[in-house]
């Protein structure tokens, strides 16, 4: 089965975040990277990363003519890190978590924005600090990825 370009981008993002597991190069050790499903099989855990697909938008000014034309889209992925630190520790690693997520996503530094050659550009948006009112806290790091595909086949990149 061939994967849609946006799905391939999703997998690149997850692979980069997975590199944070058991890796001394990062300050916080994450326990898992998951994609939430319709039936909600996950349970919130300390230092758990969720990659949630956000809004899709058309970017008409980056379309290119041809037959078929190339259609540009921008997809936002919300990278959410849950933090449930030990009640007795009083530690607050929310800023470290956001920094580590950026470090992971932007590796390799020179070409991170192409998502392994699948995208034209990528951008990290404004942090959103999450508080579940007594549940897990965390931080959301939105990543917007602009890519272009064939009008007839979103499985074919038209970078």
């Amino acid at each position, binding site marked *: 089965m061939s994967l849609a370009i946006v799905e391939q981008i999703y997998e690149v993002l997850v692979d980069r975040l997975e590199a944070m597991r058991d890796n001394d190069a990062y300050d916080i050790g994450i326990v898992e990277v998951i994609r939430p499903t319709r039936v*909600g099989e*996950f349970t919130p855990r300390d230092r758990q990363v969720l990659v*949630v697909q956000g809004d899709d938008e058309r970017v008409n000014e980056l379309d290119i003519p041809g037959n078929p034309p190339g259609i540009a889209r921008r997809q936002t992925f919300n990278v959410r890190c849950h933090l*449930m630190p030990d009640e007795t520790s009083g530690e607050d690693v929310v800023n470290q978590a956001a920094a580590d997520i950026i470090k992971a996503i932007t590796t390799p530094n020179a070409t991170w924005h192409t998502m392994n050659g699948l995208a034209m550009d990528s951008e990290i948006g404004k942090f959103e600090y999450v508080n*579940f009112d007594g549940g897990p806290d965390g931080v959301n790091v939105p990543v917007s990825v602009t890519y272009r595909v064939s009008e007839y086949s979103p499985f074919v990149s038209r970078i």
Partner: protein
Amino acid sequence: MTLKDTMQADASAVFCNTDDFAEAVTYHKRNGLSRSINAVVQREAFAINPEDGDTITPVFEVFVANDSTKGIASDEINIGGDMLEFPQRVGQPKSRRSIVRITQHDEGMLTLECR
């Protein structure tokens, strides 16, 4: 024995009796220790987490005795990592669920929210 003592004893002997509505669950502490306890598990509907991009998780309301051997003591529970292990649906294999908050507690019982 005072009424208060009786209610505390009833919390584990009566309310959390597995012959009635309770079931055996496993309490996993953040430090790696665990023990089997009895609890009444209310399996609620799925909840939407708007803070999390509208993800969905099941919600469980769990009643346990406020007791360090037969239940969970209110001074030992740590909502920063403690988990309970029970089936998500009756008949399914057990899986671990995080205790995300203590919704209510007194000398006899704790009411916990697990997701």
